[in-house]
């Protein structure tokens, strides 16, 4: 039984993982991620890819909302900026995806920082409304700036190619998404244990004290918007190249709210929680519609009811989480681990 975790050096003490159990768990997760695509059929691969793309976007949003405390309703629009930037550069300029995706992330970071300017003066709900304006403005630009975006018409994005072969199957795209997700996770986790990340959390917890301790609020809030939007842009850009056909309808206010739900259910201010939340919110509708189809044989009216039931179940799950586990799946998982860390002396 462990009574605590002690370390000989600060370097070891500051590492992410400490105990053999933690390393084993990490190894198992990685091994699973590597083996999974060889065992899964296309349906599960699609789900996995959707989860991966959503997780990157959720980590981005969590950096801003969960860690820095700046509520954003502009997630959908920022994903659109990433998706359209990368998609247009690839489709119109013929640039390769490994150039357009990083550029799209940078563009989204700049757009995000721009729309983060009101955060200096606005907090909470007021800021949420300002980011809602960002959502509407960007949506309007996409649907009305026909010459650039093609307006309400769908944009066809070429599938990425690597060494001459197209990455046009779920199996192949899986690896791109996996690498991006691992990169995003590592970068965000590192950032959060260094100067910039601490300043983010300090702003969330007590902005005036942070300022008194020397944190330039304006600069760090804009940085939070930029870094967050960078990864949200990545999520959008990956969506574009993965789907190969996108339209503005994929990036509406509903998307923004879906992502907020992901990080609330997964755990505000938790990187792993962002991933759990993305998985949960992607799998829930899939499970519900499978269930619905299964019931269709017995209850013919099911086909009509499925969409409504999905919405209702979504809402119900969010409410249940808010009531019973406001800290999300990440907290649930921590409790389970704590239980087994002390097991069998867990009283």
């Amino acid at each position, binding site marked *: 039984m462990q009574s605590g975790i002690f370390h000989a050096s*600060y*370097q070891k003490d*500051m590492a992410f993982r400490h105990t053999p159990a933690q390393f084993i768990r990490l190894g198992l997760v990685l091994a699973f991620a590597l083996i999974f695509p060889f065992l899964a059929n296309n349906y599960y691969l699609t789900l996995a890819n959707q989860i991966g793309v959503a997780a990157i976007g959720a980590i981005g949003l969590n950096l801003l909302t969960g860690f820095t405390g700046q509520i954003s309703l502009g997630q959908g629009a920022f994903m659109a900026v990433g998706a359209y930037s990368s998609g247009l550069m690839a489709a119109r300029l013929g640039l390769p995806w490994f150039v357009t995706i990083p550029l799209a992330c940078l563009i989204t970071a700049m757009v995000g920082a721009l729309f983060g300017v009101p955060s200096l003066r606005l907090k909470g709900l007021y800021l949420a409304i300002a980011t809602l304006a960002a959502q509407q403005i960007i949506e309007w630009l996409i649907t009305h700036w026909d010459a650039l975006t093609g307006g309400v018409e769908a944009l066809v994005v070429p599938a990425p190619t690597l060494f001459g072969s197209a990455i046009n199957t779920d199996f192949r795209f899986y690896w791109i998404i996996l690498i991006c997700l691992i990169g995003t996770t590592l*970068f*965000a986790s*590192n*950032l959060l*244990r*260094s*100067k*910039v*990340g*601490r*300043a983010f*959390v*300090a702003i*969330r*917890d*007590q902005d*005036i*004290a*942070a*300022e*008194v*301790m*020397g*944190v*330039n*609020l304006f600069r760090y809030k804009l*940085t939070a918007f930029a*870094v967050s939007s960078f990864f949200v842009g990545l999520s959008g850009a990956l969506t574009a190249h993965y789907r190969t056909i996108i339209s503005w309808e994929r990036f509406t206010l509903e998307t923004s709210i879906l992502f907020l739900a992901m990080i609330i259910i997964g755990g505000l*201010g938790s990187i792993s929680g962002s991933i759990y939340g993305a998985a949960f919110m992607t799998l829930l509708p899939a499970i519900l519609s499978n269930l619905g189809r299964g019931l269709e044989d017995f209850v013919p009216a099911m086909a009509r009811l499925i969409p409504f039931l999905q919405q209702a179940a979504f809402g119900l799950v969010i409410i249940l989480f808010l009531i019973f586990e406001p800290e999300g799946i990440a907290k649930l998982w921590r409790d389970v681990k704590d239980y087994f860390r002390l097991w069998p002396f867990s009283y």
Partner: protein
Amino acid sequence: MIQLAVEEVTLQFGGVVALRDVNLQVEQGAIHAIIGPNGAGKTSLLNCISRLYHPTQGRIFFEGRDLTTFHPHKIAELGIARSFQNIELFRGMTVLDNLMLGRHVHLRSGVLSGGFYWGKSQREEIAHRAIVEDIIDFLEIEAIRKKTVGTLAYGLQKRVELGRALALEPRLLLLDEPMAGMNVEEKEDMARFILDINEERGITVALIEHDMGVVMDISDEVTVLDFGQIIGQGTPEEVRSDPNVISAYLGEQEVTFRPI
């Protein structure tokens, strides 16, 4: 040498005059107490120094520089740290992270070096962690260093807040009622820490405190505020026998000149 000079500071909120023509000089290396009844304007004075409030009139000089020309976040860089009357810690962060945030102005890493945690950023974290650990040892809070601040008892939170301010390595430390709400034992500990900070680290301390026993024991200089005006100033002995001060305190229940 005068380290902090408050000159003719007036602060108004609409019709309320929180401070009127306040002149105050804090000697380098001193422990300078600011006392006065509730609503006298003590916190407002500290807020003017921290640049959270902007004086309606007057100027404030720290080591010869006019603070009223600086942004609030620049005050920390100049070497001024503070604690708050109602603890303002980063509740979701650990004790360690709260203190590490105190090192903010001394750290150099940015988004990229932090995100990749390459050599420079990692070395920096470790070096500054050592400084923070010194402060943790000094304040005897080793046992709670990994605890989330929001879960700690009030007295400990006060101590952590002092630690966060110390982590800045300030030359001037402003403490707003560091002992409020503490029991006698906790107050004694806090008084000892303040004395040690002043003597061993050579940090000037300006503190607001209601417990007259403590004030008389540890301070070199006392300023008395009442209704936004200074009504007495001097050594503890001088202030104690000042008729103006005594009459301002007549009828005050919570503040008595009873030595501990």
